[in-house]
C-alpha cells in the first residue's frame, strides 16, 4: 500500500528540499531494516544534513530500493547526518566526509519511555497557559469521540448538551441557523452570540446591523460554521470574563475555541469515512381532511355571521353563499378542484437522506507535518426542494525551519450550496392550505389530476398571493412552489493563515499570524408564476433574484510570550499582544420579473428589473492585550489580564476602552501533604476564583455618525436636515463577571467540576430607542441604559466505572442552571405595545423578572351555557346591571356566548382586557444538561447521549394557529373536539369555531406549555472489525457503526418538537412556529484507516 503513495511523498520531499543548493559532493547510501533476519530496504526514509544548531541544510528521501543521494553542503565541517523514518528510531551520525553511508534502522518499540514523556507534554493554550495554571472556567471536548459514531452536519449539533452552560438550539432545516447562548442572555439588543475562534483566529460570524439590503436574511448570509465536524480536533469553551478576556470584547458572550486536526509525525495515514443517514421526520400534527375542513369553515363563518347578525355580515355571507370553494355545488366550474382531499404537507415533505464522505491524509517527519482533508456532504432536507451540499478541503502544513523558527500554513476551502424554497413559508402554507383544494387541475371527464398546477388565486377563498421571494409568503400553491421555485445560496469560503513562532533566547517567544478569510455568497432565487397565480404583468410574476456578496476579513496578531521559572518555584508567564482586524463587505442584488423561466432570468434581457441594490461597509478594530500569570510552586496561581480595545463602531469619546480581568487558583493536589501518599485519593484538585470585565460594542460601521438628508429646496436654496443624531458618547456595554469554581478528580476515576458565576451587565445597548420629538429626531440609533444579571452554576461529573481490557464503562453528566434577571430597567425603555387581540402576549421587561417572560390571560375553558357567561364578583356572585339584568362577560368588546373562551376575570369587572393579564412563566430553562455513557466490550461499543432542557416554557403558537378557528387556515384535528352545543364543555376546552371575530384565543396560558424535555440524542453502536483479519488487507482499522439520532424525546409538550428555536431579539417571545421539526435519524457508516 505504501508504494502507491510514493509519488506524493517525493513531492513533499522536493518541497522540503527547496533550501538545498546545487553541490558537487554527494553522499550516497542505502537505508534498510531487519525483518525476520533479512535486510529490507526502507522506502521514503528521511536523510538530512544538519548543522550544530540543528538547522536543516539539505535533505533526501530513499527510493524503492532504500537508496539515497544527498548533496553535501559546502560548509562540510561540523555536519551531522540524520536518518529518520516513521516508526523507526532516528539516528544521527557525525559526518566525516564519507562518500557512502549505509545504515540499518531499528524499530522505535524500545523507546516507550521517551514516547510517554512526549505524551505528557503539557498542553498550553494560545497564551502559553497550561490547564494547571488556569484560573478560569473552561471546558474542552474532544470531537473525535462525538463525531466518529455520530452523523452530524454541523458543529452546533455535535456540541448540543455536551458543554455545561452552553445552550444550543438547532433548527430542523439543512443549514438552518442555530442559537448558541453561553451563560444566558447578556444583552437586550446587542448580539448574544458567542465568539468562535478557529485555530486561534477569531472567526467572523456576526452580521452587521447595517447589512440590510433587500436580499439579506439570516439564513442566506447566516453564520454557518463552514467547517466540517470531522476536521475538528477539539472544542473548548471559555465561559467567564477572565477566560475570554484575551479575545477582547468579541468574546464577551463566551468563546468557542475550535482546533482543527493537523498532521502529526509518523507514517502517512489515510483515513476514509462514509456515513449514510436516513432522516425520519416525525409525523406532522394531524390536520383536518377536505370534508372536515369545509364543515369547520361553514360552522365558523355561520357562527360569526349569526353573532354579528346576518345583515351586518357581508363578508361572511359572501363566503357562505357565494364562495363555492367551500360551498358544495357540482355545477360550479371548479367543483372538481375544490372537492378533493389533499394532504398538502405530504406533497412538500420527503424522505431525506444524507451522505457524508471524508478522506484525509496526514503524516510528517521531524521537520514537517501535513494534513490534507477532503470532505463531501450531501444532505437532503425533509422539505422538498431543500438540501445542503458541501465540499471542503483543508490543508495544514507545519514546517520547522529550525529549532527556533516554526512556520505553519493553513489553507481551507469550503463550498456550501444550500438549496432552499423560493419562500420560507412553504410548510406553513402547506399546513394552512385548504385541504379540499387540488394542487393540480382535474380532468372533468376522467376526474384524474392533470399535469398543470392549479393556482386559481383571484376571488380565492384563501385570497391572492402575498409575499416575497426569499421571504415569507401566503396564498400560493406550495406543491408548485417546491417543485419549481428555489432560493439557493452558494457560499464559498477560502481561509488562508500564516503562522509563525520564533523562540528567542531568555525564554521569550514570538507568535504571530496573518489570516485572510474570503467569503463569497451568491444567491439565486426564482418565484414561479405557476405557484403564485399572479398576473403576468405583476411584479411577482416569475420573479428572479440574483444577489452577490463578498466579504474579506483580514486579521493579524503579534504576540510575545515570556515564560520563566525563577528559583524553580516561581514561574512567571507574561504575554502581550496586539490584534488588528478589518472587515470589508460588498454586496449587490437585483430582482427581475416577467422571466420566461428560471433559466432565462438575465436582468439585462427580456425581463423587467423590479429592484436592485448594492452596499459596501468596512469595520476595523484593534485591541492590545497584556496578561501576567504567576505560579508559585505549581500550587498557587495568580493571573491578571488587561485588554485595551478600540472599535470603529463606537463614538469618538469612548472608542477605546480598557477591560481588566483577574484570577486566582489553588492546585490542592500539589500540596506537599500528598507527597507521601502512595496512592493519593485526590488525583487532581483545584479551586478557582476569577473576576473580569468585558465590553460589547454594537455591530456595524460608524454608527456614531450623525447624518443629514437632503430636503430638496427650502426658500429657494438647497437644504438639508439632520436625520440621525451624532452619538459621540455612545459607550460600551460592560459586564463584570465573578466566577468561583473547583475541579476535582478522585482516585483517578471520578471527576467533578463546579462553577458558580455572577455576571452583571450594565450600560445595556438599546437600539432604536424612541426619544421625544422635541429633539428633532424620533429615535436614537443606540443608547446605553439598564442593567442585567446572569447568575448560575454548572456542574460536571465524569466517572470511569469500569476499565478493564475487555470491559470499559464510563459515564458523564453535566447540568447547568442560569438565572437571568433585569436589575434595572433602561430609563426610557419603550415598552412593546400590547394590543388587545387574539394570539397576542404582552411583552414586558420587568425589573426583577427574567428576560423572556410571558404575560397573558389565565384560561379557564369554555362557557357552556348562558348562565356561565354571567359576570361574577370576587365572592362568586352574579353581578347585575341597573335594570336588574345579569351582566354578561365580555371578552374585549365582544359579548361572551356559550362556546366562547373563558378567561379569569382577575379584577372582576366583567370584561376581559389588559387589566386581567398575569405572569405566565418564562422561556429560560431552569436546567440544561446532558448525560451519557459509553460501554465497550472487546470490539463493540455502545454510546448513548441524552440532552435535556428542563423548566422552560414555550408559547405553542403552532398549536394556537391550528386551533384558533379564526380564519381560513386549515386546522388540526383537535378542533373536531370543539364546543358545538351545550353540554360539550364537559369534555372539551376548545371554544366554538368563530370566523374572524371574538377573542377565543387571546394570549393565555392555554398555549403556554412546559417544553421541558429529555432527549436521547444519540444511541450508537460501533463495531471494530478484528485487527487480525484486517491486517491481511493492509487496513489498520475498520469500524462499522450504526447510530440513531434524536430517537426518543420525553416531554409533555404537545407540539411537534419541544426544541424550539429562540428568537434573535432578547425581548421577542419564544414561540413554536412549527418550522421543520428536528428529524429523527438513523445512520450507518464506516470509518476506515490504512
Amino acid at each position, binding site marked *: 500500500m505504501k508504494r502507491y503513495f510514493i509519488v506524493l511523498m517525493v513531492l513533499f520531499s522536493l518541497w522540503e528540499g527547496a533550501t538545498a543548493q546545487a553541490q558537487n559532493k554527494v553522499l550516497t547510501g542505502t537505508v534498510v531494516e531487519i525483518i525476520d533476519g533479512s535486510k529490507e530496504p526502507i522506502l521514503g526514509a528521511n536523510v538530512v544534513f544538519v548543522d550544530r544548531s540543528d538547522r536543516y541544510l539539505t535533505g533526501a528521501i530513499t527510493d524503492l530500493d532504500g537508496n539515497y543521494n544527498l548533496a553535501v553542503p559546502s560548509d562540510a565541517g561540523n555536519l551531522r547526518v540524520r536518518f529518520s523514518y516513521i516508526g523507526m528510531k532516528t539516528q544521527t551520525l557525525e559526518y566525516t566526509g564519507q562518500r557512502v553511508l549505509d545504515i540499518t534502522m531499528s524499530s522505535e518499540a524500545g523507546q516507550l519511555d521517551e514516547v510517554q514523556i512526549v505524551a505528557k507534554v503539557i498542553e498550553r493554550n494560545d497564551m502559553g497557559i497550561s490547564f494547571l495554571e488556569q484560573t478560569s472556567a473552561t471546558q474542552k471536548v474532544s470531537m473525535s469521540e462525538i463525531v466518529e459514531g455520530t452523523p452530524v452536519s454541523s458543529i452546533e449539533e455535535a456540541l448540543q448538551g455536551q458543554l455545561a452552560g452552553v445552550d444550543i438550539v438547532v433548527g430542523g432545516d439543512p443549514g438552518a441557523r442555530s442559537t448558541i447562548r453561553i451563560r444566558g442572555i447578556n444583552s437586550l439588543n446587542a448580539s448574544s452570540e458567542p465568539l468562535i475562534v478557529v485555530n486561534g483566529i477569531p472567526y467572523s460570524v456576526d452580521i452587521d446591523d447595517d447589512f440590510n439590503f433587500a436580499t439579506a436574511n439570516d439564513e442566506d448570509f447566516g453564520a454557518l460554521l463552514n467547517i466540517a465536524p470531522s476536521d475538528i480536533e477539539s472544542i473548548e469553551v471559555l465561559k467567564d470574563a477572565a477566560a475570554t478576556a484575551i479575545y477582547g470584547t468579541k468574546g464577551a458572550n463566551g468563546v468557542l475555541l475550535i482546533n482543527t486536526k493537523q498532521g502529526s509525525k509518523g507514517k502517512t495515514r489515510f483515513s476514509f469515512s462514509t456515513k449514510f443517514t*436516513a432522516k*425520519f421526520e*416525525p*409525523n*406532522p400534527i*394531524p390536520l383536518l381532511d377536505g*370534508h*372536515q375542513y*369545509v*364543515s369547520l369553515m*361553514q*360552522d365558523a363563518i*355561520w357562527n360569526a*355571521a*349569526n*353573532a*354579528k*347578525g*346576518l*345583515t351586518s*355580515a*357581508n363578508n361572511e*355571507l*359572501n363566503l*357562505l*353563499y*357565494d364562495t363555492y370553494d367551500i*360551498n*358544495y*355545488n*357540482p*355545477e*360550479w*366550474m371548479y367543483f372538481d378542484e375544490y372537492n378533493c382531499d389533499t394532504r398538502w404537507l405530504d406533497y412538500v415533505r420527503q424522505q431525506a437522506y444524507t451522505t457524508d464522505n471524508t478522506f484525509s491524509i496526514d503524516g510528517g517527519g521531524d521537520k514537517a507535518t501535513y494534513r490534507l482533508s477532503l470532505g463531501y456532504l450531501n444532505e437532503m432536507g425533509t422539505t422538498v426542494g431543500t438540501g445542503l451540499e458541501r465540499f471542503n478541503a483543508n490543508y495544514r502544513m507545519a514546517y520547522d525551519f529550525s529549532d527556533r523558527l516554526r512556520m505553519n500554513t493553513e489553507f481551507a476551502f469550503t463550498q456550501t450550496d444550500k438549496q432552499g424554497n423560493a419562500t420560507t413559508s412553504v410548510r406553513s402554507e402547506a399546513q394552512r392550505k385548504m385541504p379540499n383544494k387540488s394542487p393540480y387541475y382535474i380532468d372533468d371527464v376522467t376526474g384524474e389530476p392533470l399535469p398543470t398546477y392549479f393556482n386559481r388565486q383571484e376571488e380565492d377563498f384563501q385570497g391572492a398571493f402575498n409575499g416575497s421571494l426569499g421571504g415569507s409568503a401566503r396564498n400560493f400553491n406550495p406543491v408548485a412552489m417546491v417543485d419549481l421555485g428555489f432560493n439557493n445560496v452558494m457560499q464559498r469560503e477560502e481561509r488562508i493563515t500564516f503562522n509563525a513562532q520564533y523562540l528567542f533566547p531568555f525564554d521569550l517567544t514570538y507568535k504571530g499570524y496573518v489570516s485572510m478569510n474570503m467569503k463569497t455568497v451568491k444567491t439565486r432565487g426564482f418565484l414561479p408564476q405557476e405557484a403564485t397565480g399572479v398576473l403576468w404583468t405583476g411584479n411577482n410574476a416569475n420573479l428572479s433574484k440574483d444577489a452577490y456578496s463578498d466579504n474579506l476579513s483580514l486579521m493579524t496578531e503579534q504576540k510575545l510570550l515570556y515564560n520563566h521559572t525563577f528559583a524553580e518555584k516561581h514561574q512567571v508567564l507574561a504575554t502581550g499582544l496586539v490584534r488588528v482586524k478589518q472587515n470589508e463587505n460588498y454586496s449587490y442584488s437585483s430582482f427581475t420579473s416577467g422571466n420566461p423561466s428560471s433559466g432565462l432570468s438575465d436582468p439585462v434581457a427580456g425581463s423587467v428589473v423590479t429592484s436592485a441594490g448594492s452596499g459596501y461597509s468596512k469595520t476595523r478594530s484593534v485591541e492590545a492585550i497584556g496578561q501576567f500569570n504567576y505560579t508559585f510552586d505549581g500550587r498557587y496561581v495568580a493571573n491578571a489580564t488587561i485588554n485595551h480595545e478600540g472599535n470603529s463602531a463606537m463614538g469618538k469619546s469612548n472608542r477605546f476602552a480598557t477591560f481588566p480581568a483577574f484570577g486566582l487558583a489553588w492546585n490542592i493536589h500539589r500540596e506537599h501533604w500528598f507527597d507521601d501518599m502512595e496512592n493519593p485519593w485526590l488525583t487532581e484538585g483545584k479551586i478557582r476564583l476569577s473576576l473580569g470585565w468585558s465590553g460589547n460594542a454594537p455591530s456595524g460601521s460608524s454608527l456614531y455618525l450623525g447624518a443629514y438628508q437632503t430636503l430638496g429646496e427650502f426658500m429657494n436654496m438647497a437644504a438639508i436636515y439632520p436625520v440621525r443624531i451624532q452619538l459621540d458618547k455612545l459607550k460600551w456595554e460592560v459586564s463584570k463577571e465573578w466566577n468561583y469554581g473547583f475541579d476535582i478528580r478522585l482516585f483517578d476515576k471520578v471527576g467533578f467540576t463546579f462553577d458558580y458565576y455572577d455576571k452583571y451587565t450594565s450600560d445595556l445597548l438599546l437600539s432604536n430607542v424612541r426619544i421625544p420629538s422635541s429633539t428633532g429626531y424620533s429615535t436614537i440609533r443606540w443608547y446605553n441604559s439598564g442593567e442585567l444579571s446572569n447568575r448560575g452554576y454548572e456542574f460536571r461529573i465524569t466517572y470511569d466505572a469500569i476499565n478493564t481490557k475487555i470491559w470499559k464503562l464510563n459515564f458523564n453528566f453535566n447540568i447547568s442552571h442560569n438565572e437571568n434577571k433585569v436589575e434595572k430597567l433602561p430609563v426610557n425603555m419603550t415598552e412593546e405595545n400590547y394590543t388587545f387581540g387574539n394570539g397576542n402576549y404582552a411583552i414586558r421587561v420587568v425589573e426583577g423578572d427574567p428576560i423572556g417572560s410571558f404575560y397573558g390571560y389565565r384560561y379557564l375553558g369554555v362557557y357552556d351555557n348562558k348562565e356561565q357567561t354571567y359576570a361574577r364578583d370576587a365572592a362568586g356572585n352574579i353581578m347585575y346591571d341597573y335594570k336588574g339584568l345579569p351582566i354578561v362577560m365580555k371578552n374585549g368588546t365582544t*359579548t361572551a*356566548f356559550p362556546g366562547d373562551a373563558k378567561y379569569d376575570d382577575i379584577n372582576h369587572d366583567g370584561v376581559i382586557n389588559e387589566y386581567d393579564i398575569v405572569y405566565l412563566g418564562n422561556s429560560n430553562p431552569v436546567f440544561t444538561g446532558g448525560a451519557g455513557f459509553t460501554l465497550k466490550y472487546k470490539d463493540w461499543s455502545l454510546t448513548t447521549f441524552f440532552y435535556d432542557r428542563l423548566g422552560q416554557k414555550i408559547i405553542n403558537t403552532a398549536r394556537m394557529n391550528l386551533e384558533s378557528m379564526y380564519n381560513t387556515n386549515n386546522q*388540526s*384535528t*383537535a378542533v*373536531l*373536539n370543539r364546543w*358545538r*352545543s351545550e353540554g*360539550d364543555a364537559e*369534555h*372539551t376546552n376548545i371554544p366554538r369555531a368563530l370566523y374572524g371575530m371574538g377573542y377565543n384565543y387571546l394570549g393565555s396560558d392555554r398555549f403556554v406549555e412546559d417544553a421541558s424535555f429529555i432527549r436521547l440524542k444519540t444511541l450508537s*453502536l460501533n*463495531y471494530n*472489525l*478484528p485487527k487480525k*483479519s484486517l491486517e491481511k488487507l493492509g487496513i489498520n482499522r475498520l469500524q*462499522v*457503526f*450504526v447510530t440513531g439520532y434524536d*430517537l*426518543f424525546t420525553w416531554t409533555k409538550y*404537545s407540539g411537534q418538537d419541544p426544541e424550539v428555536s429562540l428568537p434573535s431579539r432578547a425581548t421577542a417571545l419564544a414561540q413554536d412556529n412549527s418550522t421543520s421539526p428536528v428529524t*429523527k435519524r*438513523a445512520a*450507518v457508516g464506516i470509518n476506515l484507516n490504512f
Partner: protein
Amino acid sequence: MKNWKNLLRLMGVAVFCAALPSCIEDISNDPHYAIPETLKGSAYETLQEKGNYTIFLKGIDLVGYQSIVDGMSSLTVMAPDDEAFASYLKGRGYSSIEEMYAKEPNEVKKLIGFHLVYYGYNWDKFVNFRPNEGDEATEEERMNMAGYYYKFQTRSSDGMTREYDPAQKDSVDVWHLERFIPVFSSKMFETKGIDAKYNYEYFFPETKWTGNYTLENKQGGFNIANASVLNEGDVITDNGYLYYVDKVIRPMETIYTELKNNEDYSTFFQLYDGYSRFEKDVTLTTNFGKGKDLYLHGSTLLPIAYEWPNSSYRAVDVNSREGFNIFAPSNAAIRNFFTNYWTPSSGYTSFEDLDQLIVSYFIQQTFGKELFIAFPEEIKKGNVLTTFGTPINIDPDKVTWRQICCNGVLYGMDDMNAPAIFSSVIGSAFRDRRFLPYLYALDGSDLVLSLASPNASFVALIPDTAQFKGSLMKLENITGGRELQVWSEEAGAYTSIGSNALQNLVNMHISTSADVLKKEGLQVVETNVAFNYWYIVDGKITTSSLFNQQLNPTWNSEIYFDFSPLEFDEKSPNGGLWDNGRAYVYTSPKLFETSTGDPLRRVLAVCNDKSYPYYLFSQLLVKAGLVSEQQLTIAMSDARFIAFVPSNEAIKRGIEDIPGCSSFSVDDDYTLSGTISSANKTKLANYLRSYFITSDLSPFSVYPYPGSGLKGTFDTSGTNKLVLEDDGVSLAVHFADSENAPVTLYQTEKYHSLPFAYSDGCFLLINDILK
C-alpha cells in the same frame, strides 16, 4: 466459522439499524388530536342509526348529496320517514325513489334539496330568526317582528332552463336560484295577532297545525311548509340540526311558474309576461356558465319569476322575510272587468288595444303592497292593501286558488272589482284614449298613487292630446315603451321631460283646496303648485299666470276658457262619480302653466312704460334709491313679498303728501319731474318700504284675494305696519297707526280685485296712497 461470526455481527448491526425508524413517536396518537368519542355523528349517520329513513337517505345518495349530509356541510335537515316517503311516492305513482329518479332525476334533486336548508338552525332560530341583531338580540329586540323572518334557503334549484327573451328575439339560458322554504312559527301568528291554525290550514288543509307544540325552555313551535315537526325537536348533529317531519315537503315553485302552469290564468300571465326582462349575470356566467351566458329572469314590474324577492344573497333579511302577495284575476274575471270598464267610446275595444302603461297599472293593482305574506284573516280585517294603498277587497274563503310559493303567496280570483286607481279622479287617463299623454305625465310625475288615494279629495283638470300638442308635447316611442316628450328649441328635437317638470305640470292641473269649480261668480282656486291659482270668473277659467298678462297693454290673446266636468258613463263599474273628487276638461289650446318669466322684483323695478298702471310707483322706487341699478331689481330681502301698489292716478293725486316728494311734480301723462335731496331720498325710501309685506317679517302661505283668509296687521319693511282687511268680497288696506280710511283695491273690469301673482310675490293695485 469466524467469518460466520462476523456475518452474524454485521447482521446484528443491520437489525439494530432497521429497528431505529420504528422507534419514532407518532403525534397522531396523541389523544389531543384523536377524533373524539363524544361526537354525535353527522345528520346522515344519525338517520342511518335511526333506521326508518332509508328512502330519504337513498334519495340523498342518488342526487349526490351524501357527502354534504354526511358532514362536509353545515345543514339543517328535514327528514321524512319511510312511511311518509312511500306515501308521497305512491301519490306520484312511483313504487320506489329509484324509479322516480330514473324518470325524473331533476324532480328528485329538487325534492331532496328542498329538505336541506343551508347551515344550522336550531329550534329557537326557526321560531324567531333574527337576521339583523344576531345572537346578541335583546329580549326587547326579539319582540320586534318576532317570527317574521320565516324563510330559509334550501339546496333545491331548477338549475338552468332555456327561455325565450322577447328583447333579444332569441332563447336565453336562465339561471334559477335556490328555493327558500317557509317555516311557519307560532311566533309569527302571535305577532300578527291572527289564528295560527285557521291561517296555516287555509293553505295546507291536508296538514295539521302542530306549531303550538314547543320544547322546554323554548318560546314557540312551527310547521315547516306542508309538514309537521315530530316531537324530538331539534336534533343536534355534528354538522347542524335535524328535524323529523311527518310528510315529504313538496318543493315550492315561483309565483311565475305557478301562473304559467295554470291555464285559467293565462291572460293575466301573458299580460305580466310582457314585462319580463332577462338580465345577463356576469358572476353566474363565470361560475356556472361553462361557456354560456347566464341570465336572470326579472321584470320591470314585480319580479315574481325570481326565486328570491331580492336577487342578492346578502339580503338575507329581505329574502327570509319578504315575498310577493299576488291577487291574480282568472281569465274569466279579466274578461268580465274589461267589458265593464272600457267602452268603445273611450277608444279601446280589446285588451290588445290598451297601452302598455295601462296594462302595467292594471297588473300592479293585483300586487299586494306589503311584501310580507298576507294571510286570509288579515284580508278579512281589511289590513291587506294593493300596491296603490287600497284595501284588497276579496273574501278569502271564496278564493279559488291558494298557493304558497317559494317567493310569495298567490290568491286566484274569479271575480274582480274596478281597481281603486281606475276609478279615482284621474281614472279617465286610463279609460279614455284622448288622455293618454296625461297618463304618461302622471306616470312620470310619480303622483299616480297619491292622486288615487281614497283618503283625499281632488279637483282635476284633465288635459287631452290636443292641449299637449299645443304645448309642443307628444308621446314618442322609445326603447322599452313610450314616453312623453317636449319640443326643445335648443336641441331642435323632442326631448325627455324631467320628473320635476312633469310634477309641476300635473300639480298645475290639480287642486285639493276646492271640491268643485263654480259656474258662476268669482272663484280663486289654489292649485297644487304653491302661489299658482286658477281664477274662475263667471264660468270661465284662467290661471294666475295668464291673468298677469292683462297688465300688458299690448296683450290681445284669450285669457279665460270654458271648462266642463268629465264623468263616468252609466256603465261605470263602481257607478257614479269618481271615487275621490271631480274631473274637468278645459278648452285652452295649450296646457295651463305655472307662472314663468320675470319675477315681481324685476317687474316693479324696470317699468318705463307710462301705460302700465304701476308706472309712477316704479319711478318713485327709483327716486328713493330702492332699485339696484346693476341688478335691476328692488333692493329688498330675498323673501317672498306682497306689495300694495297705488295706481298712477293715486300717486299723481297725492304726490305732495308723500314724504320726501315735496320737490316732485307729476304731469297729466304721469311724467314725474323734479330732483330729490339725499335727506328726502331717505324719507321717501322709508315710506315706500311700508308698502311691502315680506314673508321673513310676516310669514304668509297664500297671496291675498277676497276670501283667502289672509288679513290682520303685518310688519312691513318700512316703519309703518299695514292692516289688511278682507270681508270675503273685497280687500282694503291702511297703515296701522293711521286714522285715515282704509284704501280699497283699484277696481277695473279686468282686474276683479285679484292679485297679480308672480314666482317671488304678488302685488295688488290700490286706489290711493297710504297715509
